[in-house]
């Protein structure tokens, strides 16, 4: 039986992590179908059909799918589930909200946030904020699996030509009403997919001081992250939070500034390829995961860092 991927999109285009989830789905079974549920989402459906790993696209449109509520999404996926061995989507806020609702209806024990497909029924997933890895085998007939997007490469986005089959909408769930979405717009790369992330912690001492980080992030073409302590102190908004309950990032370069390295923060960034820590406390736990540690007062180090970057002839983007 084939694998069903739930596409995440904004009605106009696919969200980037759909490509990572497609890769994970294709590692479970070569026959991957994808369902796209939205309103006026024809362009996104076409984009989905062009992913070479997708063999068939199921598309459904209705006004009550416009805002992706789990209560409206799940009935249609449950109906489709009889034809599939696995249901897959990303373990971001979209998939975390949706998949358990599907799994419970199917009486399936969900496997959350996998970082590796070992076999079609066995997966590797982090537990305890990534301080342990568990190998989990599912004995359920149907498997509901969410994947950690940063642990799978995005699939090719062009060259495919899967058929697009229209399916009927299910009834609206009337007890949940969407009011509004406040998306934080930024010219910088998205935190979850950025090649470089520059993060600040409580050591920044104020929201104003984050401009030291902004400046460096702009120079490097980086996204801006933060520890929970910095978010809780009100220095920066929550969508920047990296950690167990925030975002998990795996950039090529992660620069932690004034971050002590609490367990829950390390959970969100310690898989980064290169980690830099700048902290005046030489004993801070962040140094235990850093490839390059600089023990220094950040208010002296950051202006110097900017100066050194300005001296470079070229900076990779």
């Amino acid at each position: 039986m084939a694998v069903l991927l739930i596409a995440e999109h904004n009605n106009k285009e696919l969200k980037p992590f759909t490509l990572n989830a497609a890769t994970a789905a294709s590692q479970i079974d070569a026959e991957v179908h994808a369902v796209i549920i939205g309103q006026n989402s024809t362009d996104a459906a076409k984009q989905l059909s062009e992913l070479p790993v997708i063999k068939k696209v199921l598309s459904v449109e209705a006004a009550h799918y416009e805002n992706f509520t789990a209560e409206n999404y799940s009935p249609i996926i449950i109906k489709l589930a009889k034809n599939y061995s696995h249901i897959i989507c990303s373990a971001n806020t979209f998939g975390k909200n949706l998949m358990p609702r599907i799994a419970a209806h199917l009486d399936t024990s969900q496997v959350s946030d996998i970082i590796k497909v070992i076999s079609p029924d066995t997966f590797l997933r982090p537990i305890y904020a990534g301080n342990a890895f568990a190998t989990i085998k599912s004995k359920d007939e149907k498997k509901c699996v969410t994947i950690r997007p940063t642990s799978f490469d995005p699939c090719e986005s062009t060259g495919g030509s899967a058929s697009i089959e229209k399916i009927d909408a299910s009834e609206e769930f009337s007890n949940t009403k969407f009011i509004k979405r406040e998306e934080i717009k930024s010219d910088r790369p998205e935190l979850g997919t950025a090649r470089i992330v520059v993060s600040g912690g409580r050591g920044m001492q104020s929201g104003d001081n984050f401009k030291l980080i902004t400046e460096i992030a702009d120079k490097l073409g980086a996204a801006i992250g933060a520890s929970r302590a910095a978010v809780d102190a009100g220095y920066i908004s929550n969508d920047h939070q990296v950690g167990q309950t925030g975002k998990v990032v795996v950039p090529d370069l992660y620069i932690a500034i004034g971050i002590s390295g609490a367990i829950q923060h390390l959970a969100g960034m310690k898989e980064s390829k290169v980690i830099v820590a700048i902290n005046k406390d030489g004993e801070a736990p962040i140094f235990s995961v850093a490839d390059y540690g600089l023990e220094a007062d950040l208010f002296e180090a950051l202006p110097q860092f900017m100066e050194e970057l300005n001296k470079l002839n070229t900076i990779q983007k």
Partner: protein
Amino acid sequence: MKILVAVKRVIDYNVQIRVKEDGTGVVTDNVKMSTNPPDDNAIEEAVKIKEAGKATEVVAVTVGEEKAQETVRKALAVGADKGIHVQADGILEPLAVSKILQKIVDKEKPDLVFMGKQAIDDDCNQTGQMLSALLNWPQATFASKINVKDNKLEVTREIDEGLETIEINVPAIVTCDLRLNEPRYASLPNIMKAKKKPIEKIVVSELGVDISPRLEQLKVEEPPKRKAGIKVANVAELVQKLKNEAKVI
């Protein structure tokens, strides 16, 4: 309005986890345990709603071994009126817990069920959504703001893109983000008072739900360790290393 709050006993968030040498799990003997952090936010919010006169009763429920009762006792000490301890040993998957909670909901008939968005031990992030599926109730996950209206809640949710606001009709499930509020500490007099509050004990077998595990944990291991890094002397050396050695800028 009656609010049921589900709380879980987990290894304290400040404890450095150690994996058992035989690969069967993590060490829990003689390790400090406490309430799952976002479950504290769930209790706090329920108590605040009651204090604002918008709820009449807050019931705290936990599912787990004998000592899980401590978690309920703590909830009573910060303002819950009554506790329920469903005694169950061994590994309980979120699906099983949600089936147990469904039975408790049938019995207690709450208007709202609150719980943390995720437990920091298994990091599953499933139980609230599963319970709302089983009950066919609306769900507001990752809540960072709750506004109680007549038979409705307006909830602001933390999503990857920023914030989302939804309105849900009661009865409903809310899973709480750490940002929802600042949980209070229990005062000594309230801890003493809590000792007199009732905790109903239910043995899981009485509920008649299938809680057998569907997942087999084949192995628990330590994550690969990072190679030890170096300390650099100054910013110039750092930038030079990033440029020429790591080649990332």
